[in-house]
């Protein structure tokens, strides 16, 4: 098990499996920023990213015995985070159908606009938010997580061709939406 994990990481995984939550805390500390980054890029909200990051680690702990070490532990976590983020979007949409008013409040509360360090960062995230979730996932994995199309395809349970198409389609939109800000900056 966990052939690709480092020896410390392997120890932490084995101890976590034995119920040692302190060992699991060490694993959380090691991977929390990566998981949070994936969740934030997918949701555009700090509050939702925090919830999703917690949920990712809770789910990973409960499913730890299913981690076979065929991929890196970080890849396994990334897959859980991505699946939760994609489900979060669907859930948010359903929530909007039922109590749109609550959702509006939630969106305004979750607004992270004022916390971006600069205008480019804010505009890029807004553009990502406008992409269809699966195209956004393809961009997050290939651009921000530096995954190859083959790795992204495995993570998203689709073919490499599908990923390539999603990346292509997303790039066309992002170029159109971000053209003005890039012009301003030149």
């Amino acid at each position, binding site marked *: 098990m966990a052939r690709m994990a480092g020896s410390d990481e392997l120890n932490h995984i084995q101890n976590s499996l034995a119920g040692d939550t302190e060992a699991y805390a060490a694993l959380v500390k090691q991977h929390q*920023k990566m998981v949070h980054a994936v969740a934030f890029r997918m949701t555009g909200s700090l509050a939702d990213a925090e919830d999703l990051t917690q949920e990712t680690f809770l789910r990973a702990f409960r499913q730890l015995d299913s981690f076979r070490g065929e991929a890196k532990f970080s890849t396994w976590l990334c897959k859980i985070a991505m699946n939760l983020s994609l489900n979060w979007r669907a859930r948010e949409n359903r929530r909007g159908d039922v109590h749109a008013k609550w959702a509006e409040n939630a969106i305004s509360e979750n607004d992270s606009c004022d916390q971006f*360090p600069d205008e480019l960062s804010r505009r890029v995230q807004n553009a990502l938010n406008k992409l269809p979730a699966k195209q956004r996932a393809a961009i997050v994995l290939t651009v921000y997580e530096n995954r190859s199309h083959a790795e992204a395809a495995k993570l998203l349970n689709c073919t490499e061709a599908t990923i390539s198409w999603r990346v292509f389609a997303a*790039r066309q939109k992002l170029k159109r939406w971000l053209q003005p800000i890039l012009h301003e900056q030149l």
Partner: protein
Amino acid sequence: MNNSELESALKKAQMPARPEAFWEMFPRRVVHRLNRPPVWDRARRHWLPRLAWGLGMAMCILVAFAIGHWHGRMEKNDAFVLLQNGKMLREVLTLFPNRVRAIVQDERGLQLVLSDQPNVPMSTPLWVKICDGKQCSSLVTFSGQELEIAGQKITVLSDAEGGIILEGNQFVWSSSARNFAQGGLKIEAKRLNSITL
């Protein structure tokens, strides 16, 4: 704009920064949630502290026995009505002030879900019945509680107008828009306004 210019712009974009204290505390918060008392999924029990689980089980058995004794004459068909019994609810809530997250009646019998801290706010109890075609679970809980019922996590909420909303991973149900329930679940819910705490 070519692909490399776009990629460069995307990578330049930074995320809002979290203070270092947030990252220091985050693993603690995850571990705290891991150590919460068990909810429903028996398959997950192994990672809970054995002592907490033992105590929780003992309390559940005691309360179930007491409730069964008090209502010994009730027939099985009346089981779901039991949860709407004001006297029984008041007694359980008095026994565990601010710790009762839910009282559940399902095919396994009557079960009590307690919080490990007295942090469950007092509010009007909500009665919920969920049937998935094979079996039914009936429970009394409070707004804001996240429970695992019929194999899925469900958050029970009440709104200012007296409506009840159930939010699961795969569905959202509202007492004011009942057609949103999905996955073959049949759901009923109401506020137990007559029960004063």
